């Protein structure tokens, strides 16, 4: 049985405000959760949020004074709608069997596989509250209001 759990994921957001939190609703097993189960649920939530944003991005967005100020501070004001050159590139590559990215093209199963593979390779860490959730460690309870941290890493080498 799965239940919907409202958790907050730490994200770094607007400059100067430092770390903030955003809410995620995850479908999780009712009791303790393994790393794999938590990652699957988080990926599902991210993919559906992404697809909603992608649909929104295909519409032209009219600026407001508030959004304009915030966008300028981040260095980019995006307005949505068609982008130049994209149709050209689509036509150019259709014959070669290439597919360009577009809204709604993310397969959830692929996204989950990619995330689990990356986790197995140590490309990110997961914390629930104060505790790290590992592949071989114990399952942890994730309840309403739990704080999650997904920390991205890269493999390093001497050069």
């Amino acid at each position, binding site marked *: 049985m799965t239940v919907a759990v409202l958790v907050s994921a730490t994200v770094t957001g607007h400059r100067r405000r430092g770390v903030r939190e955003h809410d995620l609703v995850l479908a999780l097993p009712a009791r303790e959760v393994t790393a794999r189960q938590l990652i699957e649920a988080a990926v599902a939530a991210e*993919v559906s949020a992404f697809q909603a944003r992608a649909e929104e991005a295909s519409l032209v967005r009219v600026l407001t004074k508030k959004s*304009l100020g915030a966008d300028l501070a981040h260095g980019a004001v995006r307005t949505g709608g068609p982008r130049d050159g*994209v149709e050209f590139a689509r036509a150019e590559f259709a014959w070669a069997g290439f597919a360009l990215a577009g809204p709604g093209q*993310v397969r959830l199963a692929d996204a989950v596989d990619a995330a689990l593979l990356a986790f197995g390779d140590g490309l990110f860490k997961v914390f629930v509250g104060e505790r790290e959730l590992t592949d071989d460690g114990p399952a942890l309870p994730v309840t309403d209001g739990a704080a999650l941290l*997904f920390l991205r890493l890269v493999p390093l080498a001497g*050069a």
Partner: protein
Amino acid sequence: MPAAEEAATRARAALEAAMVAQDAFTLADLAGLRRHPVVAPMLATLVWVTEDGVTRLLGNAFGAVHLTTGPGAAGSRRAPAGPLRIAHPVHFVADGTWVAWQERLFKSAKRQPFKQVFRELYVPTEEELMGGPVSRRYDGHQIQPRQALALFTSRGWAAARDAGDAARAFHSYGLVARVKTDPGLLTVAEADLPAIDGVSFTRRGDYLAQPLDAVPPVAFSEAMRDVDLVVSVAHAGGVDPEATASTTEMRAALVRETARLLKLGNIGFAGQHAVITGRLGEYSVHLGSGTVHRRPGGAVRIIPAGSQHRGRLFVPFADDDPKTAEIIAKVLLLARDHEIKDPAILERLRS
């Protein structure tokens, strides 16, 4: 393509190029263009900017070219004092009219010959202005080389094999925008995907990057707009990376939180650096560039290994920025330097 449609396509491209180049149109030029059957209706839907930065539509009452209304209430009809240019979002921000122009155009439902009022705008961030002449905004984003080349070419860029970069000349400013990729777009092997490695601007025929605050705002915006397009569409993950710049303050906050959770007591901060007291030595990691130094001593060359991007990961990361991930990984590695097994890194730490 029928001849009329072809002429319209050419006219649209020419007007967009005139906006990017900020070509000046005299009243005589405009009077001539208004007799052109294809161009004339296009001129009426574009917003123009005067020498002193006022944005207006063009009118043609009484047969003479003049400036009419601003975005809000009706303005006075008057002949412009000097030449006019096709306005860029840079000008709408400068005279505070962007929101009003968008609302006006949206309500009138008029189609512009190219994306002008709803055009994307890119400006240097505080971090970019402080961080030297190369913008690192898109660094680490991997792209499909063939798609990227097609997109770059369609936007007037050319890839050079010897320089390992793609370049777009902004002739009217005497500037060239350059995007480096590693490996180069033309030299890339099948299995390797090029990653963006800096966007910079040089004078023509020169490779010395100019400070970003010296780059004319229209040229900066247009170059970054093209790179953003390539990164969003030809990225190697199948979905939009929604690239955003990360800052050193946010990285410091994340390093602090990570150290607390992992109970690593040997990580501190000094200015723009994380300072790590390991068992084999003391190190600093720069929160902007990720450069590692041994204290006292020189730079320690530790770099991201291989392809760390295997497409976008749909995980709600605290910070998705590849440079942030590199910095956190370095801090964690050095905080437990006694656990390092990689002989190449150990050699670097000892030398």
